[in-house]
């Protein structure tokens, strides 16, 4: 006779409160589905107005025109949200890089060293391409940040020990250029964040380049997870100072 060695699976009982939450979520789902089905079709859309004014916006792609020109105020605040995230992460603790290099694989070092220029080229091209196809500052900045993250995890000490002041300038470059362009809109006659149609293409490209640099650095700083060790006006770093508050 075989001994019954089947493991007893312990059933975890769900607390009654979770059943209540499940019931409420189901009711919410039903309500939202009913609302979605009631949306009047055809949907009102701003696509014809955007298409009419596309020539005056300075770019050929409608999404880039909406993002940077027609709804530029939202994008300006979005870049500042990035800056705010970087400030928050830098306020909390230091970047947890190991003080000595662990065993680095030579294949990884060689591959990253080969890939880094291509990342810069592809990121820059995506920023340039935003004026006529899909692309722009955020897409190019994301590719640049991917390259920087590759450099950070491949034990390139020059990247991990970059000084704090260039990083701060890089983070604020995008928002400052954006606010500068917005004020230039007032100075050059017009309103806040308005671009004259004959200058809009060049101004938008400058804006996108600055924002791409800033976005790339900010995303890489999100990955790094803290301020550099030699941050300005700070006492010298003692290991273990980040190990939790009392």
């Amino acid at each position, binding site marked *: 006779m075989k001994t019954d060695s089947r493991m007893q699976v312990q059933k975890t009982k769900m607390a009654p409160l979770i059943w209540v939450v499940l019931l409420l*979520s189901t009711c919410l789902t039903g309500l939202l589905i009913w609302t*979605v089905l009631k949306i009047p079709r055809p949907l009102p859309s*701003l696509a014809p107005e955007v298409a009419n004014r596309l020539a005056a916006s300075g770019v050929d792609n409608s999404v880039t025109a909406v993002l940077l020109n027609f709804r530029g105020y939202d994008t300006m605040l979005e870049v500042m949200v990035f800056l705010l995230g970087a400030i*928050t992460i830098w306020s909390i*603790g230091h970047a947890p890089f190991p003080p000595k290099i662990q065993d680095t694989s030579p294949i990884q070092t060689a591959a990253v060293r080969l890939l880094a220029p291509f990342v810069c080229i592809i990121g820059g091209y995506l920023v340039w391409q935003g004026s006529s196809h899909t692309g722009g500052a955020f897409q190019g900045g994301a590719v640049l940040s991917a390259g920087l993250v590759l450099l950070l995890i491949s034990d390139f000490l020059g990247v991990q020990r970059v000084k704090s002041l260039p990083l701060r300038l890089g983070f604020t470059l995008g928002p400052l250029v954006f606010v500068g362009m917005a004020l230039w809109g007032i100075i050059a006659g017009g309103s806040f964040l308005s671009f004259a149609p004959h200058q809009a293409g060049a101004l938008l490209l400058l804006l996108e380049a600055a924002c791409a640099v800033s976005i790339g650095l900010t995303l890489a700083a999100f990955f790094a*997870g803290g301020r550099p060790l030699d941050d300005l006006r700070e006492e010298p770093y003692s290991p273990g100072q980040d190990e*939790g*508050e*009392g």
Partner: protein
Amino acid sequence: MTNLLYSLTGLILFIFGFFALIVCAHPLRKILGCNIMASGIFLFLVATSYRADAAAIDPVPQAMVLTGIVVSVSFTAVALILAIHVRKSVPKNPQLGERSRKDEAAS
């Protein structure tokens, strides 16, 4: 009809994320729940604005989704760093992670 299916998928993803945000005790699960909520809303926005008969896409919801993706990356990063530092300060404050440790042990 197909894009109605995508819209409802986005909505159901939102509800899944919302449920995970409320019910799960571990901070990482809450953060992932917020991310799923955001992804559901993006899918819903893009799917609802699709028109098969128009020549060009509707650019305003696409721009809104781009902005939303950026903001979701920001809050995910800040939330993760905060969760790491909460976890680090648990030895000095043992009640802090009790329910989430039970949640982790049960998974």
